[in-house]
C-alpha cells in the first residue's frame, strides 16, 4: 500500500534577511549572515525548503549585566570589556554574530553618553569581523539619542538594529533608512501589537523584507509558553501568506534566562534543584532549543556551554 503524502503545503516563504556587509558591499565584515527563506516549519526538511540554518548571536554588553557569578566566571574576565568579550564569542564560542546591547546608556544606570556608546560600537566592529546586532538600552527617550550615533558609527555595516516599538519606530526607521541597516520590530508578548508594529514600519516606508520580529522572550517558567505560541502562530501566518508576519524572528534567550531564580540561585536556597553551575546553562540551552522549534531564526545566547549545546542541536536537526 502506498503511504499517503501528508506533508503540508504552505503558500508563501518567510522573508530572507541578510545581516552584515563585506568589503565589496560597503562594509568591513568577513562574511554576512542570512536567515529566513523557509517554506515550512522548523526542521521539517522532508516538507519544504529550509535554506538557512538558525544562527546564534553571542550576547555582549558595554557594561557587565547583573548576572550570577557562575555565568560571569564561565565567560571570564572578558565580560568586563565589550571588545574582548566579543572577540571571545567569535574565536572561542564560534558564534555567527555578535549582539551588542548598550545597557550602559540606561539613565538609571551608568547613563553613558551617545558618544561613548558610539565608540563602543566602533571598537567592537573593529575587533570582530562577524555581523552585528545592535540594541539600545530599552529606554525610548535615551535610545532616541543613542541609536542615531551608534547607527552612524556602523554605517554601511548592514547591522540589525533594535528595537522599533509602537512608541519609537519613527526614529529607528529614519536611522536605519539613512545608514542602511535592518530593523528589529519589537512587541511585548502580544502578537496583535507585533503585527501592528510591522504595519507601522511599512507605513513609514520601511520594507518588511528588511525586518526581523522580536516578540520579546520569556524564560522557561516565566511565560515561555506564551512566547512559544506567538512565535509559532506568527510563523504559520507567514507561511500561509500573511506578508505582515513573514519576517524571521529573534529571541533574546541569554538576556532573559539569567534573570530568573532558577538560573541565578544555587542549591543552598533551592534544595534539590541541582548545582547552579550545571542548571543555569541547561536552562538557557533548553529555552533556546525549544524556541528553535517554535520558529526562532536568531538566538542571542550568553553561556559558552549553552551555546555549544545549541550549536550541536542545530547541526543535528538541520
Amino acid at each position, binding site marked *: 500500500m502506498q503511504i499517503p503524502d501528508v506533508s503540508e*503545503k504552505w*503558500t508563501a516563504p518567510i522573508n530572507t534577511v541578510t545581516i552584515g556587509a563585506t568589503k565589496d558591499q560597503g562594509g568591513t565584515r568577513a562574511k554576512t549572515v542570512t536567515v529566513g527563506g523557509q517554506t515550512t516549519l522548523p526542521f521539517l526538511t522532508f516538507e519544504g525548503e529550509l535554506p538557512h540554518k538558525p544562527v546564534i548571536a553571542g550576547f555582549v554588553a558595554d557594561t557587565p549585566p547583573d548576572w550570577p557569578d557562575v555565568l560571569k566566571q564561565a565567560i571570564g574576565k572578558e565580560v568586563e570589556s565589550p571588545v574582548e568579550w566579543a572577540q571571545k564569542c567569535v574565536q572561542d564560542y564560534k558564534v555567527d554574530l555578535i549582539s551588542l546591547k548598550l545597557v550602559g546608556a540606561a539613565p538609571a544606570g551608568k547613563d553613558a553618553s551617545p558618544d561613548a556608546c558610539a565608540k563602543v560600537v566602533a571598537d567592537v566592529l573593529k575587533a570582530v569581523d562577524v555581523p552585528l546586532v545592535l540594541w539600545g538600552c530599552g529606554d525610548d527617550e535615551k535610545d532616541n539619542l543613542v541609536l542615531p550615533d551608534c547607527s552612524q558609527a556602523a554605517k554601511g555595516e548592514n547591522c540589525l538594529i533594535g528595537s522599533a516599538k509602537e512608541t519609537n519606530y519613527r526614529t529607528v526607521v529614519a536611522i536605519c533608512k539613512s545608514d542602511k541597516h535592518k530593523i528589529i520590530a519589537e512587541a511585548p508578548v502580544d*502578537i*496583535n*501589537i507585533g*503585527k*501592528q508594529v*510591522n*504595519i*507601522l514600519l*511599512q*507605513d513609514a516606508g520601511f520594507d518588511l523584507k528588511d525586518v526581523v520580529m522580536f516578540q520579546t522572550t520569556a524564560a522557561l517558567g516565566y511565560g515561555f509558553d506564551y512566547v512559544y505560541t506567538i512565535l509559532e*502562530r*506568527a510563523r504559520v*501566518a507567514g507561511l500561509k501568506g*500573511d506578508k*505582515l*508576519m513573514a519576517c524571521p524572528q529573534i529571541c533574546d534567550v541569554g538576556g532573559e534566562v539569567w534573570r530568573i531564580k532558577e538560573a541565578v540561585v544555587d542549591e543552598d536556597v533551592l534544595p534539590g534543584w541541582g548545582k547552579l553551575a550545571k542548571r543555569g546553562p541547561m536552562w538557557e540551552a533548553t529555552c533556546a532549543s525549544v524556541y528553535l522549534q517554535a520558529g526562532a531564526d536568531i538566538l542571542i545566547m550568553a553561556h559558552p556551554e549553552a551555546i555549544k549545546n545549541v550549536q550541536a542541536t542545530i547541526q543535528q536537526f538541520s
Partner: protein
Amino acid sequence: MIFIGERINTGFKDVKAAVENKDADVIKSWAVKQTEAGATYLDVNLGAVSSKPEDLCWMIEQVQAASDLPISIDTNKPVMLKEAVPLCKKPPLINSTTAVDEKMEAMFPIVAEYNASIVGLAMDEAGSPKTADKRVENAGKLLAKAMEFGINPEQLFLDPIVMPLKYMQEQAQEILSGASQFRLFSDPPPHIVCGLSNIANGTTQKKLINRTFAVMLVANGLDAVICDVTDEDLVNALLTAELVMNKQIYADSYIEAFRS
C-alpha cells in the same frame, strides 16, 4: 480573502461600449481602480458582446498592460480559453465549469496544463441545485474529477451557486449549509467562492444584502469572492469577518494595512 474584481464585464454599459469601440482606457482604468482597491484577481468577461476569442484576448491584454494582477477568465468555452490562457502572464483563474462530465473533461486539461485554477459551479445537467445536499453532491463530483486530472484542491474554487434572495428566499440557507460542507472535502480544503451580487438581484438594498450575506458566507467557509472590490464597506466587512473566524491575526490597523 481572495477578492476577484467583477467590474471588467460587458454586462456593464461602459465596458460593453469600450469593447465594441476598442477603447482601451476604460478597461485599463477599471483594472487600476480594482488593483488599488485590493483585488487579488481581475475578472474579465466578454459576455455576449462577441464570440471572437481575439476580443477576449484584447481585453486581457489591456488589463495586463495596466495591472500585474492575475486574470480570472470569465468564460466556459474551451475555444476561448485555448487562446486566452496562454496570454496570461500569471496562472489565471478560469471561471468556470459545471459538474457536467463533458464540461469538466474539456476544461480540466487546460487547468492542469497551465497550472491554473478553476471555479467549479455546484450545478449539473439538471441545472441549479435546490438543496444543500445537491450542492454538496455536485461539488464532490467537481473535486473528484479535478483530482483525476492532477488538479490540487487549492486550485479548485467551489461555488455553491448563489440565488436571488428576493425571489428564492428559502435558498440562502441551503447555500450556506452547502458551503459549510464543502470545507470537509479535503485538508487543505478547496477554496469556496461565490458570485456575490446575485443575492441582491432586484432588491432595493443591494449593498447591505451583499454585505450581510458575504459575512454569513465567510462564517461558513467562504474564502474567495467575486464582487465589487471598490465597495469599501463590503471589503471592510469581509476583512472583519475573517478576523472573527480567526483566519487572520488582528492588528489595530488591519483595514489600513489591507489598502497600503
